């Protein structure tokens, strides 16, 4: 379980996060929703210790983040984190060099799943394919938790479909996933849990199925209520 407690973060004078708390369970897909600039990415970076928080705590399975945690949790940012001049094969080699949790057979599977050629240079790939390589590098790690920042933004429709397929596959199964999005439609049926953010705080945190069952509301209904009501 990832527990985020009372995160606060200021950029200059702007209070981006003002006491954000939520939890994300293993085996569930948790979705952070909010308009752009609301601090979704900052939360993910905070969990990964890629940007310092002003205050608050983050526990991953009850423990603070350490260098070994990076074998248990990975972050897939919205842009690829590899050197553009590398080929896909070199990028995979790099991952294998440093991560014990790198699963090469899964990487190979993903490669064919996404129909990527490993001798291609990252810089020569289309936007959609670059996003797929980015996803591949994260998904091929045998980690318990996956953080994905806007995996669907700015990508063509076919790539979106392929990426969406990933969420219903064994590639994500049993892991805890946190994704951020500002646009819920495509993935509404994929997610277990929603965390609605605005003005640096969590407005509502709920399970999608429970919401449908108990109140008969879709995620968009709740969003409409929360943001406009």
């Amino acid at each position, binding site marked *: 379980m990832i527990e985020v407690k009372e995160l606060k973060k200021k950029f200059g004078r702007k209070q981006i996060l003002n006491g954000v708390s939520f939890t994300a369970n293993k085996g569930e897909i948790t979705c952070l929703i909010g308009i752009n600039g609301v601090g979704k990415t900052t939360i993910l970076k905070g969990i990964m210790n*890629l940007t310092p928080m002003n205050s608050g705590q983050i526990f991953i399975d009850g423990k603070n983040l350490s260098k070994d945690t990076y074998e248990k949790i*990975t972050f897939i940012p919205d842009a690829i984190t590899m050197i*553009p001049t590398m080929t896909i094969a070199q990028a995979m080699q790099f991952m294998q060099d440093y*991560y*014990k949790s790198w699963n090469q057979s899964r990487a190979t599977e993903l490669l064919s799943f996404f129909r990527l050629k490993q001798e291609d240079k990252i810089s020569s790939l289309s936007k959609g394919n670059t996003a797929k390589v980015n996803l591949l590098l994260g998904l091929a790690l045998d980690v318990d938790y996956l953080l994905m920042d806007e995996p669907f933004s700015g990508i063509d429709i076919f790539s979106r479909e392929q990426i969406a397929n990933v969420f219903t596959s064994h590639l994500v199964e049993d892991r805890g996933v946190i994704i951020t999005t500002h646009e819920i439609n495509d993935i509404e049926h994929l997610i277990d849990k929603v965390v609605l953010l605005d003005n640096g705080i969590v407005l509502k945190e709920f399970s999608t199925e429970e919401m449908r069952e108990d109140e008969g509301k879709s995620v968009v209904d709740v969003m409409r209520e929360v943001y406009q009501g």
Partner: protein
Amino acid sequence: MKSYLKLVNFEIGRFMKIYLVLIGLTILSQLIGVIILSKSYVANANEAIYEYLVPFGQFIEEYGRMSMMSVVDSIWFMGPIALCAAAFLFYIFFIWYRDWVGKNTFIYRLFMLPTARLNVLLSKATTIFLLVLGLVAMQLILLPIGSMLMKWNVPLDFRTDMTIREIINNSHYLFILIPDSFIQFLINYGLGFMAVFVLFTAILFERSFRWKGVLLGIVYCLIASAIFLAPLIYEFGIQASFFYPVELLIIEIILGILVIAISIWLSKFLLNKKVTV
């Protein structure tokens, strides 16, 4: 440790292309320089002796004998060395900032590696250190080759042959790069290493606090210099002449190690607690 070594290898690989270009330029410029300077000296001698009938002795008196010194002091030789020095000075900054630039921010990857972040810093420092030593080593290899080329081009009576060490010891800048004694070598490169660590710390200040960090970085550089130079300033500035040279040397070595240690400690703190990707 394993990750550190892999990272060093990785960083070296990343700089390889520019590095090979630098090496190639140096080799070309220095060897071409030897040939051109030798040929022009011989041409000059021929003209003087055969056309203007200047006696050999008088010619030597006026122009001197050709030696590696005139090559070493020429732009052909110094140029590429200056270029390499500038390149590495630039690279001290570039080795960090290129990981932050653009949309493809490789620093995410580096900081999410399951290894201490300090290893990233140490590997970058080691890379710079190793590559600088590599260039200097190449210079050491190039000198005898240059000497040989000069011997082929200039007749015995017109040249002064020098050993590699003589050439180095007579040239101010080569003498800094390749000092005479091994202890001096350690001191020179220790100083260089210290400077790299201080600059790295300043860069990390900037990466952590941005504009405020620039100021902090500059202040840190000043403090580090002040710590290191304090005894020397006291000694020569205030004309106190309090310490004996040996004592001063020991104090400076201790202070140098201290500055390196503080820099590494601060860098570690910044990398783990303050840096923003």
